[in-house]
């Protein structure tokens, strides 16, 4: 789960990380009032779940309150990577001496959270990584022992030669690590970590991504979710425990398991079709999930044919069959459906479908071919 910059910074601040003063505005007038209150130059920053805000014009420096109003007017309502900006963070503009990058992410290879720090911070950090990898220090943390003091100091000295700055940085590493672990993060970043000319460190931007699997333990984090900044169909799918990503094709796919879902999409493409979506109904199944999946897919007017590809393991195919029958009784389908079912309780599922006038096959290749043909203009039973 993504949270906004201002939320991430507040969380980090709760663990002691120094951040510039800031408040949220949803109107230009609010932005102006906040800038007036602060009485210094501010940044107005779009709060959306998308990278590259700065390059898209969503982050602006404002010398005066009137300036803040004007910039907020431009940014609020702006579209960034398909998402509408509904809030801006108005925050005191820091005096910038130098900018460092500090990130922590769970690394598959090392099977640990890994810190990445670089004195060459800012928006071009990926280029630094690609072109001058020696400018990045990678430091894996053994979570059994936590981040040890000497590791934090090592990062501090990698970023700053000055011992006072190095010690401040080491402290921030500990605070960032605590926030990362306590909030169940898969990613936390401070970029830039600014050293002011006065010798103070301050987190000018912050980003946190929460492991969805942790949310059951962290009601306070789940409460930070901002559904207004996500695509409605994806919010709907998530509320139904489905993984859904909208695409541009016309074959609506309902599959169980991410691997099989991807293989199904690959096969649709292989046979000349275009998938309309990725949709994984997941493991443990119930008929309700299928009803929701059909509702979400049929909301897409591009879909010309619906393809079910279900291979039952922990998913019971009879649950899926019951879901199809229930959903189509309540809302008769306007597009043809091709069903492929095999595995757990396959015989029961086939009987349910046949009894209700559906046909189904047990062969994936055959079903995909048929769905592609149907979407191109043919018709399924």
């Amino acid at each position, binding site marked *: 789960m993504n949270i906004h910059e201002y939320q991430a910074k507040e969380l980090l601040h709760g663990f002691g990380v120094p951040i510039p003063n800031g408040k949220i505005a949803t109107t230009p007038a609010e932005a102006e009032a906040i800038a007036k209150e602060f009485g210094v130059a501010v940044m107005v920053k779009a709060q959306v779940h998308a990278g590259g805000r700065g390059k898209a014009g969503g982050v602006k420096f404002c010398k005066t309150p009137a300036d803040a109003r004007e910039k907020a007017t431009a940014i609020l309502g702006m579209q960034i990577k398909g998402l509408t900006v509904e809030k801006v963070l108005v925050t005191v503009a820091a005096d910038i001496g130098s900018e460092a990058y500090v990130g922590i992410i*769970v690394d598959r290879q090392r099977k640990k959270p890994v810190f990445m720090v670089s004195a060459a911070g800012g928006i071009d950090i990926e280029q630094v990584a690609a072109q001058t990898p020696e400018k990045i220090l990678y430091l894996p943390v053994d979570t059994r022992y936590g981040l040890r003091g000497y590791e934090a100091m090592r990062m501090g000295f990698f970023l700053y030669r000055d011992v006072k700055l190095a010690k401040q940085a080491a402290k921030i590493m500990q605070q960032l690590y605590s926030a990362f*672990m306590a909030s169940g993060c*898969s990613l936390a970043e401070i970029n830039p970590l600014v050293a002011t000319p006065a010798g103070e460190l301050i987190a000018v931007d912050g980003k946190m*991504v929460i492991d969805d699997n942790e949310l059951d333990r962290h009601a306070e984090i789940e409460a930070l979710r901002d559904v207004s900044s996500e695509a409605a169909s994806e919010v709907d799918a998530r509320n139904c425990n489905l993984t859904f990503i909208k695409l541009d094709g016309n074959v609506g796919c309902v599959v169980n398991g991410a691997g*099989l879902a991807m293989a199904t999409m690959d096969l649709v493409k292989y046979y000349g079709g275009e998938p309309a979506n990725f949709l994984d109904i997941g493991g*443990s199944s119930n008929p309700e999930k299928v009803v929701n999946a059909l509702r979400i897919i049929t909301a897409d007017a591009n879909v010309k044919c619906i393809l079910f590809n279900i*291979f039952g*393991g922990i998913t019971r195919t009879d649950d899926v069959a019951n879901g199809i029958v229930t959903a189509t009784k309540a809302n008769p389908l306007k597009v043809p459906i091709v069903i492929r079912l095999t595995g757990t309780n396959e015989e029961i599922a086939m009987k349910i479908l046949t009894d209700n006038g559906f046909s189904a096959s047990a062969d994936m290749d055959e079903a995909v071919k048929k769905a592609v043909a149907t979407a191109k203009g043919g018709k399924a039973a």
Partner: protein
Amino acid sequence: MSIFINKDTKLVVQGITGRDGSFHTKQAIEYGTNVVAGVTPGKGRQTFEGAVPIFNNVYDAVAKTGANTSVIYVPPMGAADAIMEAVDAGIALVVCITEGVPVLDMTKVYPFVKERGARLVGPNCPGVISPAQAKVGIIPGRICIPGPVGVVSRSGTLTYEVVYQLTRAGIGQTTCVGIGGDPINGTNFIDCLSAFEKDPSTKAVALMGEIGGTDEQEAADFVKNHMTKPVVGFIAGQTAPPGRRMGHAGAIISGSAGTAAEKVEAFKAAGIGVAVRPMDFVELIRAKLH
């Protein structure tokens, strides 16, 4: 022969009285697996289906039944604890089916299991089956037949698909292992390839990978340098849209690695046969076996 599980497997089911646990335990017993015990705290001294004794914890189950393998069907927030309990109780192979285990939990589970020299398969995996010998997890028994092919896969249902096609073509399996697709899992491709290489009954290996990470590339290296047996591979996600990248850190740590094209290249460079469609495994494997 087979890898990881066989006729000597004595299985304890953690979470045996839950919805999934009870359903799949019945299936495992029907399949002929030697299910010796179940664990559900508070239900000690009861029995499952009048046949399998239930214990309050894995220690008691091991002490009383000699269980050597465990399968886990407990809810995600308790899965890490269940894995560590099994390993602490002396279980040598733990198969965790549970989906949704927090990855930070796994950063502690992984070294815990290694320290004690045990093997974990999963979490978020379909488990292991050695056809006609034992079934530990949720891979449907009826789609498998005994034979010479070792199967290893990161995904669940895609594994079933391929195994089912092999079986329909009369090509049986020594063992099928679903290693799971979570960021941190206990057993990787190389662990399985290495075991298949050593298993005399396995004559060829089918490997199903996915986009993301570099496990498939490392597996390809291993095949090139350490395997004498033929391997056929598949990568799911050729047409998947690029996932939303995770901050700058995600980009830095993975670099350009993880695309399907790159993985297929690595397979080819290692002499691994590449299945374009899942059904292609049948002909490719058949050719390798003859």
